[in-house]
């Protein structure tokens, strides 16, 4: 008895689609069940939805790649993550130690805020920080010109009067 393969080898020139015999049985059975259903039932039991060829065999691999195999792949990643975590902890410790050490050295020299006297602070503020009223007049740009002008006029009058009071004795010089 000739095997199916032997028949196929006898060349007639006719060719068949790839895997035709592998899926023939399934297709045939499906067709038979479809015919039975449409003739036997009022409503079609078959939805009409089809699935791509070999879908379920590739699906399994796809799901396993995203779960089981994906997790296995991540083991290396976790290992790297662990190294990164250790490196971060070491960096924090080194930085922390550095800051503490520097602070300790500064304290030894006595240059901390607690060692600055009240007088020094007051002197610094007096010499370097503008009084509030002056700061306000500088910031208040809308009235800048008027305020400045008024102050200058008042200052001039005061200075002139003071000058005359102080220098009254020297007025004789004018007479001369």
């Amino acid at each position, binding site marked *: 008895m000739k095997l199916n393969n032997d028949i196929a080898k006898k060349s007639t020139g006719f060719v068949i689609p790839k895997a035709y015999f592998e899926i023939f049985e399934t297709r045939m059975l499906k067709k038979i069940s479809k015919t039975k259903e449409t003739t036997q039932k009022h*409503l*079609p*039991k*078959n*939805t*009409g*939805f*089809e*699935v*791509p060829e070999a*879908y*379920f065999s590739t*699906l*399994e691999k*796809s*799901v*396993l790649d*995203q*779960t*089981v195999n994906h*997790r296995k792949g991540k083991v290396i990643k976790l290992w790297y993550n662990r190294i990164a975590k250790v490196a971060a902890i070491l960096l924090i410790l080194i930085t922390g130690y550095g800051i503490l050490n520097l602070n300790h050295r500064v304290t030894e020299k006595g240059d901390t805020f607690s060692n600055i006297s009240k007088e020094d602070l007051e002197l610094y503020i007096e010499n370097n920080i503008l009084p509030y009223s002056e700061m306000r007049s500088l910031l208040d740009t809308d009235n800048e010109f008027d305020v400045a002008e008024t102050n200058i006029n008042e200052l001039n009058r005061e200075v002139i009067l003071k000058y005359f009071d102080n220098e009254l004795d020297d007025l004789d010089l004018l007479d001369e």
Partner: protein
Amino acid sequence: MQEEELIQLLQNPDKKDEAFSLLVKEYKVRLYWHIRNFVKIHEDADDVLQNVFIKVYRNIHKFKGESKLYSWMYRIASNESITFLNKKAKKLQISNEEIQDYILDNLQSDVYFEGDEIQLKLQKAIAKLPEKQQLVFNMKYFQELKYKEMSEILETSVGALKSNYHHAVKKIESYLKKY
């Protein structure tokens, strides 16, 4: 393999991967058709099914065995399908009701739909049903699940399910007579 045995293996870290492979083999077809009946398009069903299995894999340790494993997975599949359709509707800026019509309008051009006129009409009639009745009808009519199984999956009494199915069939018949 008994379900209890499979659950034990799935919850054992050393055997989990091997058991999960068995689980996929056992349930992939059933879950696929459950999802496909709901989302209609093969590519969408494929996406949802893979998400379902990923969720099962990640959450199997939380499964306490209060229900059957397949009920638990069907429940995840139902929820994932509904969520998927809602997201799709939002993306297309249409309502959750309109999405079913939108899918069915494009079904005829789908290469993976080979249904005839009556099958398409039936799908359109199902699409007109409320969400819960759609699930009940698909599970009873196409997947031929028992009311008891459906009751476990949908967490609804058998009486309520029978009533749901009855109403669904009446509505479908009425739609088919009308169109």
